[in-house]
């Protein structure tokens, strides 16, 4: 346990020192909330079926946080450690790379949760956001969303022969998904063709699922998204594990 705690503390510190990860996990979603909140406020509107703009935006920004940690921070750390042979050094110690990777995943999940809490607290204090769903269902939806997007990041690291290619895959998928999934602006503003394209993006289904559970919508309204998230997760974990078996760690 002493080893796990030491690795967790160190990796958390390194996460906080990474400007990109820190800014986009903690500061940027709050900045978006405050910016759009100051423009639109959070009065109930028929446009969002009686919800306020910020009520709808908070779960979308939560999806943005999952995108940052799952598609940027976590996979970029894995590929850098692998390419620079940092895992190899840990593998020549009583700890091993498996434990390091598991703790890195735990650190990134923890940072995601801290990002959520920060977002909710500020949303509640500043705009009195209304969360109609029960917290247990919301927590399950978040866990499934995190598992899906982190699996996708893991799959990219397994697929990429180098850190450069991994970074390219992660950056492209992150920015495409952030702008086309409804995480930064409501999908209701998109033209039909973009809405059709966005259905192929896993983060769109994260947004659907989180928005559905936040407003306590019937499961039927986001069941397809749940299925997509589960399917992407299973595929990415299985394919990633197979690809990793063929990789050299030396």
């Amino acid at each position, binding site marked *: 346990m002493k080893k796990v705690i*030491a690795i967790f503390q160190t990796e958390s510190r390194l996460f906080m020192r990474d400007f990109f990860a820190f800014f986009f996990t903690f500061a940027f979603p709050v900045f978006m909330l405050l910016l759009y909140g100051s423009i639109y406020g959070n009065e109930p509107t028929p446009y969002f079926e009686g919800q306020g703009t910020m009520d709808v935006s908070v779960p979308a920004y939560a999806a943005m946080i999952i995108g940052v940690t799952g598609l940027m921070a976590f996979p970029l750390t894995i590929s850098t450690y692998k390419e620079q042979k940092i895992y*190899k050094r840990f593998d020549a110690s009583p700890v091993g790379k498996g434990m390091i990777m598991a703790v890195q995943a735990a650190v990134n999940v923890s940072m995601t949760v801290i990002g959520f809490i920060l977002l909710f607290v500020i949303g509640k204090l500043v705009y009195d956001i209304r969360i109609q769903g029960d917290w247990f269902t919301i927590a399950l939806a978040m866990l499934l969303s995190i598992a899906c997007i982190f699996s996708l990041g893991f799959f990219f690291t397994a697929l990429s022969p180098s850190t450069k290619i991994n970074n390219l895959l992660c950056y492209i998928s992150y920015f495409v998904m952030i702008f086309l999934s409804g995480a930064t602006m409501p999908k209701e503003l998109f033209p039909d063709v973009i809405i059709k394209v966005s259905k192929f993006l896993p983060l769109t289904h994260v947004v659907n699922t989180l928005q559905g559970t936040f407003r306590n919508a019937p499961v039927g309204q986001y069941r397809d998204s749940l299925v997509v998230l589960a399917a992407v997760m299973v595929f990415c974990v299985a394919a990633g594990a197979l690809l990793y078996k063929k990789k050299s760690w030396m």
Partner: protein
Amino acid sequence: MREKLAQIERLKMRYGTVNAVTDVSFELYEGEILALIGPNGSGKTSTVECLEGLRKPTGGKIELLGCDPHENRRQIYKEIGIQLQETEYPDNIRVKELCRLFSAFYDRPVNWQALLEQLGLSEKANRMVKKLSGGEKQRLSILLALLPHPKILILDELTTGLDPEVRRGMWESLKQIRQSGTTILLVSHYLDEVEYLADRLVYLESGRSRFVGSLDEFRHFVRSKVPAEDWKESLTLEEIYLLMSPKTETLRWEGIL
């Protein structure tokens, strides 16, 4: 009679179609400094990585501290210290944080602050690892290898790329470490280093161990292999090594030497 800490018998290591190691055998005894020398591509690092348990050999037998190192890696790493040929650490980590992290991996680690002092790094404790010089990074990698209070220290090209002054400093550090009872396996390209530090050496060529023995025995061995006119009693280990090296043969044939 000194205790045998490691034994390698007829080791083979193949990567796809490439035979990196075809027949390597030697033993490592308690308290000695054993050097592994040979030209580039002779199989030194592959041999050492098999001994460290990082690679599973494709043939032969390895015993380290009485067990198979690949099968008992986590246990073995509590008793041996390793410095890899290429070692990087996370970008934004400080020296003291890295020391503290690695210390947590062992049940009874050596006091890392004392090691920092001993290796002349105490003033660098707050510095980011990426900002250390090459020599400082190498000393840090020795420090991490020493944390478990190892019975055996395995150093792969410890002083490659360092200036002569820093190399000399490293040699003195290694002598002190050996005096404290640690056995050292040293992979090196520097024959002056081997001559200064090693009790015995293993000479590898094309994946085979061609010689195992003391430095004096190596002199006799080479003397018996080379033409009498090439031999002088005053030859340094490096000059003797060059007489053995297949690359030197090529240069001689081409009329360069």
